[in-house]
């Protein structure tokens, strides 16, 4: 109880401090240039971490969530099958983008395949940029004072941004990994324009020499968090003026 009170006090003290401003900028080029040059975005097929089950089904759900958000912001969205077909066609003609011996990406081949894929998409669909969505695994780095205070006050398991973690407050986790929904938007010349990610769910929690893993069959089941992530990764984009 003492520990919990201490956590809560620390948390409340921390909350009392000045909240950091949201000065995160996901743009690699100016937002003005992005607004002036991008109206139609082609989605590339979603990339998953190795071992993810039901990729086709989950991919369709995640892509739909992203597409809805982009369309709400008045972008014209070209489905991933269109990009995927062109990409496979051109990269196959070039002998594949991966080195058959080392498995490493052949950068020059990648660039050439991308150049011809986007050229064809611009001609056929007037595409201005390509969005690469992906699920990435990353550590959830911060457990906020607010979450700690909430957990302590309710004497329940640890929460992260309102998300319940499979570990109690007293067993402070050493590492929490989570699936994130990520998006990178690349211009037709292969230059990165925008990139951001946001967590969907906790997948592995390491505590005191052990760990707890969320089963594959239970992953990507929370539409609230999927939609929240889709919203967060697109929130910085300028709305298209049509």
């Amino acid at each position, binding site marked *: 109880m003492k520990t919990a009170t201490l956590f809560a006090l620390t948390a409340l003290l921390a909350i009392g401090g000045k909240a950091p401003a949201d000065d995160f*900028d996901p*743009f*690699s*080029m*100016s*937002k*003005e*240039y*992005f607004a002036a*040059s991008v109206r139609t975005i082609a989605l590339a097929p979603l990339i998953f971490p190795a071992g993810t089950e039901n990729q086709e089904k989950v991919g369709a759900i995640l892509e739909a969530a992203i597409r809805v958000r982009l369309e709400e912001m008045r972008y014209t969205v070209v489905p991933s099958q269109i990009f995927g077909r062109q990409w496979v066609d*051109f990269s196959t*003609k*070039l*002998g594949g983008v991966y080195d058959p011996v080392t498995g490493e990406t052949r950068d*020059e*081949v990648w660039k*050439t395949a991308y*150049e*011809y894929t986007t*050229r064809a998409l611009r*001609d056929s669909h007037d595409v201005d940029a390509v969005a690469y969505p992906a699920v990435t695994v990353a550590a959830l780095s911060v457990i906020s004072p607010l979450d700690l205070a909430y957990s302590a006050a309710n004497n329940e398991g640890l929460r992260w941004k309102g998300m319940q973690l499979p570990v109690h407050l007293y067993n402070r986790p050493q590492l929490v990994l989570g699936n994130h929904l990520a998006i990178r938007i690349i*211009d*037709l*010349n292969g*230059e990165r*324009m925008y990139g951001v990610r946001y967590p969907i769910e906790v997948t592995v929690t390491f505590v005191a020499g052990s760990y707890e893993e969320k089963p594959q069959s239970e992953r990507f089941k929370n539409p609230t968090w999927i939609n929240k992530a889709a919203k967060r990764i697109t929130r910085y984009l300028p709305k298209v003026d049509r």
Partner: protein
Amino acid sequence: MLQAARSICALALGLLTVGCQSYEVAPITSSDFQPEEDERRLWEWADAYHQHLASHGLLIDDPPAQAVVDEVAERVCQSFDGKGIEVRAHIVRDPFLNAAAVADGNLYLHSGILSRLTNKHQLATLLGHEIAHYVHRHSFREYRIEENRSDMYQAAMIVLALAAAGFAGTPSAAHLILDLAGSIEESVVGVQVSGYSRELEREADRIAFDAMRDSGYDALESVELFEALQEEESTRIKEPYFFGSHPALSERISTMRELLDTAGFENVEREREPAFDQQFNEAIANVRLINVGLNLQLGRVDTARRDIERYLRAAPDCPRGLFALGEYHRRYDRDSSAKQRALAAYRAALRSDSEYGPAFREVGLIQVYDDDCSSAVANLTRYVELEPTAQDRPIIEAYIDDCGGKQ
């Protein structure tokens, strides 16, 4: 009692004197110049900075541009009184308007600022300013100030970052120092590094103005250089390592105007076009073309377009420049006539060089998308003949087959 008080005062004064080091230092050109022990450390860090730039492929080796830079630097150096000085000017692969001088006499001109210049007079202003920083040991003077605030290593890094922020006060180059510094926290070096103090910048401007005039360059061109910087400030884009702004830019333009007035230029037309020196622009042409690519990588399309125009003004028949213009229109121009302009530029490149393979490919691909199959096959076939080892050959041959089938 009085004597005791005097003794205490004398002791206190003595301690104060020992505690503070002099910030006034003799210029490198003075006959009794000897580097201080701590100044040598600054040179070592400057050398590490140079190695850092070189090992990251950030230095451009372009003999024609290097020759013109060396020529102007040498001439400006000769106008400094006293012992002869030796500087080494380098061109840095960076599209922003900046130049810098570090403690060991290495000068760095960014490709962005070199591409913006149109004559040797402007280059002399720029180099004069940086050489003044070096000759008057501004790095070392700042170092002495910083040394009293922080430890030796941090002070060296701060000063190196100040120097690298350079002419325009842009922190892009200063951020390389952050990489170099490694263990130093960003807050120590500062993320808003914007160059030397105003006092030192003013001093360098004054000295540069005199040096430029003494070496026979046209002083009026100096204002054009500063106005270019101001124009860049107004169109500055936000990108990860470029978020500073030089607080003293307007002030420095005023200083230059005052210097011109004092030197008797008060009645001269200030709004004249800067001189376009053909020989100079031919010499820096390659650097300008490299800078086009750097600007396009950052989405600075308008700046890239201006670089292409300056390039073509110097070399109107150069197929590489004409091809770059075509690429600009094809990739970035949103005007309804962009395709026609691209086609015209590619064809102009082919008129200049009838064996310029990439232009055949681009003309051919535009014709593919326009369903002009017979012309497309001819141009794409010519491309494959001229560039038999091109990586995209399988794709082009597939287009030739597809188009051939449609004929």
